[in-house]
């Protein structure tokens, strides 16, 4: 029984990573590549770690480590994807010609990198407060 669970988890995880690898080659533009890769890799890595945890049921330390790795993977992968996508948009990475809509166009202030929500025009945003050196400013 436990072997079947391990086998199923391993297979699905490996397939997810394979799909991510094919997606990097096949997708037509940068954002789609990023979009395909990050999730499938998180899912695949998580499932492989989970099957490792099931393989050593007597070792609590192994399970704890596997769960901790999955937790931090889920916590950090979206942040990395967000930062990469944001900087790609700043330098003007081209989008696929099939792209239907771009709500983000013209919303960034090129100088200060502030992002408008569309309710106020871009150049009417209040100037960003200069962070003072040497003080911990918790309020945002």
């Amino acid at each position: 029984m436990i072997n079947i669970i391990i086998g199923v988890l391993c297979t699905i995880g490996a397939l997810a990573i394979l799909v991510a690898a094919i997606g990097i080659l096949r997708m037509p533009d940068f954002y789609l590549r990023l979009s395909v890769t990050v999730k499938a890799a998180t899912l695949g890595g998580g499932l492989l770690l989970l099957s490792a945890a099931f393989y050593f049921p007597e070792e609590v330390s192994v399970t704890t480590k596997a769960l901790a790795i999955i937790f931090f993977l889920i916590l950090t992968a979206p942040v990395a994807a967000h930062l990469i996508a944001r900087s790609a948009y700043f330098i003007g990475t081209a989008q696929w010609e099939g792209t239907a809509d771009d709500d983000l166009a013209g919303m960034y202030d090129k100088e200060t990198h502030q992002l408008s929500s569309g309710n106020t025009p871009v150049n009417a945003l209040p100037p960003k407060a200069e962070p003072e050196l040497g003080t911990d400013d918790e309020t945002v």
Partner: protein
Amino acid sequence: MVKQFLMNLLLAFTWVALTGVLYYSNFLFGFAIGFFLLWLMNRNERDQRYFNRVPKIIGFVLYFLYEMVKANIQVAYDVITPKFFMKPGIVKYPMEAESDFEINMLSTMIALTPGTLVIDVSEDRKVLYIHAMYMKSKEQFIEQIKERVERRLLEIIR
């Protein structure tokens, strides 16, 4: 609420120590027993938030895993087959989440659903810009995320 959660943890550890079997399955079993006992003891109390929230969190995690696998299959199908069915675009998503923690959780959840990618949060923290792979219509996409992710998430956090 925090008090009840800590009490529940203590009961679970007591169960583990009494049975002497340090497995995760045993710990979870102890946690379930502790939860049941606490629920029994607190039935007449006014503050029932903890007991409503734990089943909701479990339900949300299961639902989210199901959605994630379903969407992964859709993306995988599009990657493997030669024709592209997708219709990508960047959508402006007006969110209801307000505090830092809520926005953080919401964008993590959206980013982990395959086919969507959070690009940025606007300066006044009212709008998320999401890159979507499958966008039949903008309103439908926004409605979908509001119904499936945001409402359930805020129900748990708030």
